[in-house]
């Protein structure tokens, strides 16, 4: 895919477990963002990491970025049933430009 890839495509875990999603891309980026989409809803911004950063945290979320490998990962710790959603990585090639989204990871957290 020209947009890059996310894996896994689907992930099913139990409440309390950690969930890790990965994103790879092919071109240079200014920033990489992660969004969540609940079924039938719009996307909600979760976290942004810039190309000169390696790791960021926000609550139960941890994002890493390896620009040499052109990859990023999103870790959700102590997952909850309410975390069930699709998660998309999106890369911004310049500040304020379009976002190019991956295909998404469908996360299911079982109570």
């Amino acid at each position: 895919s020209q947009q890059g890839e996310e894996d896994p495509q689907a992930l099913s875990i139990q409440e309390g477990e950690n969930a890790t999603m990965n994103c790879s891309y092919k071109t240079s980026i200014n920033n990489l963002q992660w969004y969540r989409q609940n079924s039938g809803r719009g996307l909600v911004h979760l976290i942004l990491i810039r190309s000169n950063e390696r790791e960021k945290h926000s609550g139960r979320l941890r994002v890493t970025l390896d620009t040499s490998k052109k990859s990023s990962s999103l870790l959700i710790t102590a997952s909850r049933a309410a975390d069930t959603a699709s998660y998309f990585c999106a890369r911004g090639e310049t500040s304020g430009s379009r976002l190019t989204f991956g295909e998404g990871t469908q996360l299911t957290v079982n109570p």
Partner: protein
Amino acid sequence: EAGVAQSPRYKIIEKRQSVAFWCNPISGHATLYWYQQILGQGPKLLIQFQNNGVVDDSQLPKDRFSAERLKGVDSTLKIQPAKLEDSAVYLCASSFWQKETQYFGPGTRLLVL
């Protein structure tokens, strides 16, 4: 703070008909985006506006899709004539000028029969 508003939420039309979607961005957001999201895929940008000017429409199928943002606030996306493959969710998003985070509306789900 009010979010991005879109209407209608759902639309069913027959192929070759025309359809229009409306978006009202968050107040003060100069940049507005329209994305197309086909089932099972990530959103794909169709067009980006900066105030009322087009910044990026490289992925907009201009033979059938058009969009405008008169007065730099509300925007309308039109499809004429629609094809079966246009069945998708059309998402509108907005952001402050030169800011990376985009805020999305709930989307309009279009089904073309």
